[in-house]
Each structure stands twice: as structure tokens, then as C-alpha cells.
């Protein structure tokens, strides 16, 4: 059980500044997910915690020890790799026992721990097999088993589920969550999949271009993104953005754009008043849009033309054209919209996001 403190962490390769001033405070027993597009520095950060990558500047502490210069074996961590990295010439049992053998555990203790892990992961019958005789999901379990037998202070996961097919991925995701619940070991998990991040993480760290964009609980990221990047990255389908002009009209603040006419609620009106006369980006999630009813006022609406109708069963995704931009609206499955229909969408006034056009920060 341990906490990990990362302060002003930097990684520079010859030309590339891969990780820029990352500060992160990971609490004991916490499951923290680093998420971001490829090349955002999340894996590099994880590898620096593991000791597989040298640190250009900054400090990594596990509990009270600065581990910057400790070799990986002395950090008391375990890592699960994307390609599992099972030792192909060893049986499943030996794969899991290897780390314990290297640490000179007694034979009986090794046996006990390996069988325990086998029970937890449901791979007792596979212990004698070689990795090549296993399916993807089984290999994944062995890789997990190899990590848990050591009872390390910190688990590191580097996109462990991305080689599995979609169905298995969902299943393993749930099992990982249960496993963490049961073991309570501090875990750092890297993924590019925001759904994985949202479902697994106690807290999620969104990264882009080597910088941390936002750290927070999943719903905090979803409800209060600090900038346009986080807003667009978290949530599926992604948030819609449109350029709107802020102006005051008859003692109310309005945001208008092509096909868009929104009267801002008081709280937001106050924040946006300084932007009066300027363009800002309006962000609205697909699930916060619905087909306008007759009774709705025209104060919170978007006029759109349907381009594509995607029926998913539980909902319908409407790809609509608003002015020159395209947006996606998630509407009730009973809606009978057709392609090329013109319709009016109503927005949820409490769930509008505005972003500064230059800094991209939330307003």
C-alpha cells in the first residue's frame, strides 16, 4: 500500500519534450487512470514511474522514498504490459513464480501465492500450460496474476486491455475493477480509451502534448471540463462545439450563431458578460439536446437539418447540420426523424459549456 507523488516531472528526448511539468499526487489505494490521445506522454510518465525510462528532471516518490535513481526491481512495483510480455518458454506457473524466485522466496510460499492468484483469476487449470496455448483473455489473466503474486506496493498498467476484442475488454474491465476493490493496491493505469478511464478510475488524469489538462473524478471531468480539449475528449459521442457571438439584448445575455439562439441563464450570463461582442465556443453534449416541443420558448434552440439517423436501439443519434457545422444529438428512440428533415433542437440550459476561443479554457 503506497502513495505516489510526482512533482515537476519532465522527459526530453533529443528533439521531443514528451512530458512537461507533470505534478500528480496519487493517494494510497487509489486507482488513477492516465488518459489522452497517442503521443500525449501518458505511457512515458508510467514508464518513468516504473523506472524503465530515465527522468530528465523532477521527482517521483513512492511513500517516503525518492525512486528517481532506483532500478525497476527495487521499486516494489508490478507492471502489466499491452502485449502481456509473458515469458514464452515458461509455463503459466513459472511465469507467475519468476518474480518471487528472483526475490528468493521460499518454495512453499511461492507455491501458496501462485495458487492463490490462480484462484482469484480463475486460471488454476492453466498453470501447467505454456503461454502460446492460451487465448488472449487467458494470457491477460496470467499477466495480471504475475503482477498480483508479488503483493507490490503499486500496480502499473500500460493499456492492458487494448489487445482484447470488444466484448472481452468490457468483461476484463469489470474484473479489473473487482480485483482492485479486493486487493486495494494503489494503481496507475494508462489508456487511450476514455470509456475505460471513466469506468475504472477513482480519478482520471487527462493529458495532451505532455501536459496534464485536468485531474478529477470521472463525473467532475464530464460535468466541469476545464478546457475545450477535456470537454471534447471525455464523453461519447463527443461534445459538440459551435462558434457563437455573445451580446446583450433587452437586459439579457444571448449567445447566437448560425442557427443557434440561446438566452443564457443568470449564472452563466454573469460570467459571459465580459465577452460581450466577442466570439466564444459553445459546447453542448449530444445527450443534452432534444427535439423541441411546441410549448418550448425559442430562447434555447438550435435549428438543424438531419444528415444521418443512427438507430442504436436505446437511443437515436442524429447527425445534424447547424449552419456550416455538424453536430450529434442523442435523442429518444421513439423519435421518427428522417434524413433531410429540418427540425428544432432544444438545449438543457444548465448544461451549456463555453470556452474562450484563444486560451480554450472554460468560461
Amino acid at each position, binding site marked *: 500500500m503506497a502513495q505516489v507523488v510526482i512533482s515537476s516531472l519532465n522527459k526530453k528526448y533529443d528533439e521531443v519534450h514528451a512530458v512537461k511539468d507533470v505534478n500528480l499526487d496519487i493517494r494510497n489505494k487509489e486507482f488513477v487512470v492516465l488518459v489522452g490521445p497517442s503521443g500525449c506522454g501518458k505511457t512515458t510518465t508510467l514508464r518513468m514511474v*516504473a*523506472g*524503465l525510462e530515465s527522468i530528465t528532471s523532477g521527482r517521483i516518490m513512492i511513500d517516503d522514498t525518492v525512486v528517481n535513481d532506483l*532500478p*525497476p*526491481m527495487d*521499486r516494489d*512495483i*508490478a*507492471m502489466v*504490459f*499491452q*502485449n*502481456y*510480455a*509473458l*515469458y*514464452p*518458454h515458461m509455463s503459466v506457473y513459472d511465469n507467475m513464480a*519468476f*518474480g518471487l524466485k*528472483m*526475490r528468493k522466496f521460499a518454495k512453499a510460499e511461492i507455491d501458496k501465492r501462485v495458487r492463490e492468484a490462480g484462484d482469484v483469476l480463475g486460471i488454476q487449470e492453466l498453470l501447467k500450460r505454456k*503461454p*502460446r496455448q492460451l487465448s488472449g483473455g487467458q*494470457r491477460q489473466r496470467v499477466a495480471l496474476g*504475475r503482477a498480483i503474486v*508479488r503483493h507490490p506496493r503499486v500496480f502499473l498498467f500500460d493499456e492492458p486491455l487494448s489487445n482484447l476484442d470488444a466484448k472481452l475488454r468490457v468483461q476484463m474491465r469489470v474484473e479489473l475493477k473487482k480485483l482492485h476493490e479486493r486487493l486495494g493496491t494503489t494503481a496507475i493505469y494508462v489508456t487511450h480509451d476514455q470509456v475505460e478511464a471513466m469506468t475504472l478510475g477513482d480519478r482520471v488524469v487527462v493529458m495532451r502534448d505532455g501536459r496534464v489538462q485536468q485531474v478529477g473524478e470521472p463525473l467532475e471531468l464530464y460535468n466541469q471540463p476545464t478546457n475545450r480539449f477535456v470537454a471534447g475528449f471525455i464523453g461519447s459521442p463527443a461534445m459538440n462545439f459551435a462558434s457563437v457571438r455573445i451580446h446583450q439584448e433587452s437586459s439579457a445575455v444571448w449567445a447566437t450563431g448560425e442557427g443557434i439562439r440561446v438566452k443564457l441563464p443568470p449564472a452563466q450570463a454573469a460570467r459571459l458578460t465580459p465577452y460581450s461582442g466577442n466570439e466564444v465556443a459553445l459546447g453542448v453534449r449530444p445527450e443534452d439536446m432534444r427535439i423541441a416541443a411546441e410549448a418550448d420558448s425559442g430562447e434555447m434552440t438550435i435549428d438543424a437539418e438531419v444528415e444521418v439517423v443512427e438507430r442504436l436501439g436505446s437511443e437515436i443519434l442524429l447527425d445534424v447540420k447547424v449552419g456550416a457545422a455538424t453536430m450529434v444529438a442523442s435523442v429518444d428512440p421513439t423519435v421518427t426523424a428522417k434524413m433531410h428533415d429540418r427540425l428544432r433542437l432544444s438545449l438543457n440550459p444548465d448544461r451549456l459549456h463555453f470556452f474562450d476561443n484563444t486560451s480554450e479554457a472554460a468560461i
Partner: protein
Amino acid sequence: MIEGARWRRWVFFYLPLTAFVVSLLFPFYWMIVTAVRPDNELYRPWNAPNYAPFWTLHPTLEHVRDLLNDTLFGTWMLNTMLISLAATAISLFCGLLAGYALARLKFPFAGSIGTGIFITYLVPQTLLFIPLSDIIRNFHLGDSPWALILTYPTFLIPFCTWLMMGYFKSIPKELEECARIDGAPRWKAMLYIIFPVAIPGILSAGIFAFTLSWNEFIYALVFLSSPEQKTVPVGVTSELVRGDVFYWGELMAGALLGSIPVAFVYSFFVEYYVSGITGSVKG
């Protein structure tokens, strides 16, 4: 496989394959026939009425007997075996470590050192034997097995290094990283994880190095002079060709017996060998 009509398969697959196999195997066949053909048939003129170069009706082991009794063939075999094994062991050891270092460790000029090693492999032996013979003389190693055991690695180490470097690069880096997180220092990760996984590559390099030293001719010819020190390729050609007299039967018997160990080694490890040259490791 070639798709389509039967004749296309014959023209584009079976016929070229047959031509290839026949032209490859014919020298071996010729060697065997000559080795078991009695002398009176061997030296029969081509226009004699019963001239039959491609087969014999009176096979004999007389040449093999002569080879074993009248020459030092047994000694040559032992010499060759000893020299090849020792040279292969030295080269494999150095090649493994050097190949690993070039593939995995980060150090200045790693790339250019790798290229440099490869270039030394390209220097022809016919050019190198002149300075090498000078060195051999200075160290008083001439006419002893050490002359070859120590000079064969000059071309075997670059070869092994290059082959092993390629093989190590095909092994996922994560295997080793995982071992190091699991608690193994680098040398243990190398010994327990990487080398066992690289066995096909190691065997290929070993087999190839063994074959190269077994067949080596020019260094053996230059550095060894007394008959009892010679290796098979040199012994057979220098002792069984006297002036302009070729003892064809014994020559071919020697070539035949001399190629048996190599053929044996190949057939034994052929599967490893193929996967070593072509394959990599699947996770």
C-alpha cells in the same frame, strides 16, 4: 501455390522446382557414385563401349578402406571437429554478448560499431590471410590447431554478432522490462529470459559458424603444414592429389565422409534453424 490450370502449375512450379532440385543434388550424387566406383571403371575412357558414367554395377568400399587405412583421415576428422567446435564456442559466446549489447544497450556510437563489425565480415579471407599469417608466426602458433581456433573467430564473430543482433531485436523489449520489474538485474533477465527465448537464433548462429569452420579452406591451407595437423578439406585435397595424379575414388570418399557431420547437424536442428533465420517470437 500457383492458382489456375494444371499446366500452369506444371510450368511455373513443378518444372522449375525439379530443375532446381536436380541441379542441386547432382554433385552429391556424382560424389557418391565416384566414391563407390571401382578404379577400372573410374579410369575407363569415355569412348569405351561399356562406358557408363552415371551408375555402377560393381559398387565397392575399397576407396573408403584405402582412405581410412592409408591416409590420416581419422586424425583430420578429429582435428576438424576440435577446431570447429572450439572456434564456434568462442564465436558464439562473443557474438551473443556483442549482439545483445548492440541490440539493447544504449551507448555512444552503437550504430556505427554495429556497421563496423559488419564491414569486417565483408573483408575477404583471401586478403586477410596475409597479415594474419604474420601474426600467427609472431605468436609461434603456426602448424597447431590454435592457429585456426583463434583466426576463425575473425570472421565468425562478426557473423554471429550480426545474426544475434537481428534476432534480439525481434524479441519484444517488454519481456526484458517485465523481468527487470519482476526483480531480475539485467544479466539475470538476459540469462533466464532473453537467451532461452533466443535459442532458435543461437542454434542457427552456432550451426552456421560450425559449418563455416568445418568447410574453411584457405586459412587451414596456409597456417597448417604437417599432415597430422590438417583439417579434412585441406588434408583430402593436398594428400590425395599427388602431382597431377588425382585419386578420385578416395577424394570423393573423403568428401562424402567429411560432409556427414555437417549434414547430421543440419538435419537435427533444421526446424530451429529455419525459425531462427525467418522467425521471431510471438508473445
